[in-house]
């Protein structure tokens, strides 16, 4: 097992009359346990030069495993505020990450193709993105050679 902590702070001094300050820290565990997630895709950095859909995290097999749990991090590294990437899960749009935005969410892949995490750049002029999954999945990697 491994110990991976994730924390978030949300702050604003002028969103309300009073200031906003939210702070959270949690540990990435396997589902239903206090055993740490022990696999990762590693932090990938990609330079995308087309507006076509790409699978960041495909579900290679379709088996549901209740012991599986995962966390996903995606960041749009663009410096141009007009550039965004659209994040989908299968046919559902989660939302847009504009330049400098990131997201962190749980992921429990349940069905092949349906639960793939996908990304679509808004421009073909080149966008840097980073993404990583921390997980204990059996189903996002091939189990044999491609033939």
């Amino acid at each position, binding site marked *: 097992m*491994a*110990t*991976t*902590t*994730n*924390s*978030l*702070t*949300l*702050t*604003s*001094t*002028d*969103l*309300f009359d009073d200031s906003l300050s*939210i702070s*959270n820290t*949690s*540990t990435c*565990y396997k*589902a*239903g*346990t*206090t055993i740490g*997630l*022990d696999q*990762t895709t*590693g*932090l990938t950095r990609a330079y995308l030069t087309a507006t076509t859909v790409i699978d960041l995290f495909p579900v290679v097999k379709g088996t549901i495993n209740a012991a599986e*749990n995962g966390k996903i*991090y995606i*960041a749009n590294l663009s410096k141009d*505020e*007009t550039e*965004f990437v659209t*994040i989908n*899960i*299968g*046919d*559902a*749009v*989660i*939302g*847009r*990450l*504009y330049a*400098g*935005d*990131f*997201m*962190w*969410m*749980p*992921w*429990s892949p*349940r*069905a092949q193709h*349906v*639960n793939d995490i996908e990304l679509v750049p808004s421009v073909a002029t080149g966008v840097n993105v980073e993404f990583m999954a*921390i997980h204990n999945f059996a189903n996002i990697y091939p189990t044999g050679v491609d033939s």
Partner: protein
Amino acid sequence: MATINATISVFSADLTSNSLSLSNTMTMTKAGTNTGLEFTSGLVRRKLTATTAIDLVTVGAQMYGTPTASVANKLYIKNTGSSSVDYIDIAIGDKDSDAGEELLATGGNSKITLGKLFGGDWMLIPFEGSANNDIIVVPSTAEATTIEWMLFFE
């Protein structure tokens, strides 16, 4: 406009053979601009006592305003519990969906599950806010589960 900052840190000394230390800060801005988001739902706290699906964040007009669809909205959700066994499933679609995992292009009775938030877990995602993109929560237990959420929108 307002200045809203979000900072994430992910750290592990033993997930891989070298330590992982990731940190990133974003300022929430309106789509295509450097102008900060200025509207919010406020921090909402709900106690759920059944395993039925509910629409946690619905699209369209709300008591806190009408979030614009397909822009730079952000959504924060936290399971405030402490259980490592009980969780809430987070999905996109419609609460009246069947058990299938497929979002129908035009229908309301469908959903796709993102994942599970166990006690103490949080998430921060962009919020699309278009038709058939409600955020749904399904608790795993009928024991009281308290969740907090906050939408930042334009």
